[in-house]
């Protein structure tokens, strides 16, 4: 692990000075790399570590984005503080869902279905609420400044999103080393066996879900103040939920670095191919490429790319 920490430290230093060599466009790509790495890591806590597959994480992005934005617009409270309310709101909703799912022992496919159902309900509600702009979506006033979480240019967003990634890595690593994290993994491996040796399955699944949704919602606030436009079709959609899960799966489920590695691979590809294909009149082709990549990685790297990198690191 010391070797990994060393490499990670080097990578972090490189990423700190990297903006000196990047233009606005490339900075933007890095912002999305970090954004999706962070989202993937948040999802990874629930699915990668405890084994409960959520296909509705866009719900929490949406709650985080809308709550912090509404609080800023109507109460004048800084999104930095509003972000926490967004997180708590998302946690509350996720725990209601978790209570229903876990209390009645929903597992596997049935859990996936309830996450999709909640996300769809959330999307439809957001779509019909007048204060959220209904079908027009919600435009956010641009008032640059630290307290407003809004900036000119990509550079501040680069460092904030990098900070998010570091924060998520620290949280997940601390969890891995703690009792909570060990219980998470035990539940993923075998819930009955875990229960039999003293793991309160209900409690620890609720903790995982709460942590995961709270962290996911923080990214929603970031998105709102980076894009300045919110619409349920983009931030509460199934498409986003799939974007969230793609990176950790390809990078390595239930691993510390899987989401980050996955995001470094997928996000630039998505961004670049999206813009190039659109120019050539081939909108949507990047989704086909996603499909190919996912199939390839599931076939050839079923345990994610990180497991191969780790093996190379420790055998070399």
């Amino acid at each position, binding site marked *: 692990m010391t070797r990994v920490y060393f490499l990670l430290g080097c990578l972090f230093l490189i990423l700190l000075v990297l903006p000196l060599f990047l233009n606005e466009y490339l900075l933007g790509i890095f912002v999305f790399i970090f954004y999706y790495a962070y989202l993937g890591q948040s999802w990874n806590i629930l699915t990668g570590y405890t084994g409960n597959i959520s296909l509705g994480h866009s719900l929490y992005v949406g709650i985080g984005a809308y709550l912090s934005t509404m609080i800023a617009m109507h109460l004048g409270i800084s999104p930095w503080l509003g972000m926490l309310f967004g997180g708590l709101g998302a946690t509350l909703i996720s725990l209601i869902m978790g209570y229903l799912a876990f209390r009645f022992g929903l597992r596997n496919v049935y859990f996936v279905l309830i996450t999709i159902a909640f996300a769809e309900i959330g999307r439809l509600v957001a779509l019909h609420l007048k204060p959220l702009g209904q079908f027009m979506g919600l435009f956010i006033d641009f008032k640059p400044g630290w307290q407003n979480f809004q900036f000119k240019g990509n550079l501040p967003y680069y460092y904030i999103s990098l900070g998010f990634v570091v924060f998520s890595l620290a949280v997940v690593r601390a969890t891995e080393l703690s009792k909570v994290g060990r219980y998470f993994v035990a539940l993923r*491996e075998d819930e009955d066996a875990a229960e*039999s040796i003293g793991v309160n399955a209900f409690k620890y699944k609720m903790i995982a879900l709460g942590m995961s949704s709270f962290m996911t919602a923080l990214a929603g606030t970031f998105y709102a103040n980076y894009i300045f436009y919110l619409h349920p079709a983009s931030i509460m959609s199934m498409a986003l939920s799939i974007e969230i899960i793609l990176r950790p799966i390809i990078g390595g489920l239930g691993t510390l670095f899987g989401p980050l590695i996955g995001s470094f691979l997928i996000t630039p590809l998505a961004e670049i191919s999206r813009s190039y294909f659109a120019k050539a009149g081939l909108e949507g082709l990047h989704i086909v490429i996603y499909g190919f990549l996912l199939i390839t990685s599931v076939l050839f790297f079923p345990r994610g790319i990180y497991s191969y990198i780790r093996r190379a690191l420790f055998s070399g």
Partner: protein
Amino acid sequence: MPLLELKQVSKTFGGLRAVSDVSLCLEKGEILGIIGPNGAGKTTLFNTITGFCRHESGEILFEGRSLIDLKPHQICHRGLVRTFQLVKPFLQLSVLDNVIVAALNRIKTTKAATEKALQTIEFVGLKEKKHTLATTLTLPHRKRLELARALATEPGLLLLDEVMAGLTPREVDQLIGLLAEVNQRKVTILLIEHVMRGLMALSRTVLVLNYGVKIAEGAPEEVVKNPQVIEAYLGEEFGKEAGRGIELAQGKRD
């Protein structure tokens, strides 16, 4: 006061009475064996005691307090732990990590739990395998891991569901020695076992189930002579093998 007391416990699946009015009394420090043909309700009885399935009627008392309506993890905190007939290791975790999870049942910090886990692993003889992933372990090693996990929770009562099945005679003998040592450390044991050698060598009392009903209970050497038991379960051949088990046990006592 007995450590574990069952009063007329019953469990029905649909129209089938898997466990029917079973009563038993287990004193502290004792080893009680349960035998019976396949489908006799032995594992269902374990599942009912440990909270994995709801019972229909009857009382289950552990240290004088009812276990009814408790969840498996609460029962484990009370000091009653079981192993599974089809072992359930955490496959993608190392042997050590498997046992640490169990040690956290009583110990707050992961550091102290790691210590406890290492001791337990050494005790069951898996020291060389501590960093091996459970998925690569052989069946005998997986059974030992299952035992180590149960022991690391620091139970007062250990419920073993066929821990000896599939082991060679030599491995069975080693396990008998190990379990006798566990018992000397003040852990009471309730075991389901088809391996008569093991059962006869360890248990002071044997209880026989057939079609969910208790048909006999007593000292091993008496039970194996009971005609009803021979008819239901042992058969002539097994009767002889059980006899050898008793001789083995007596040899050890002398």
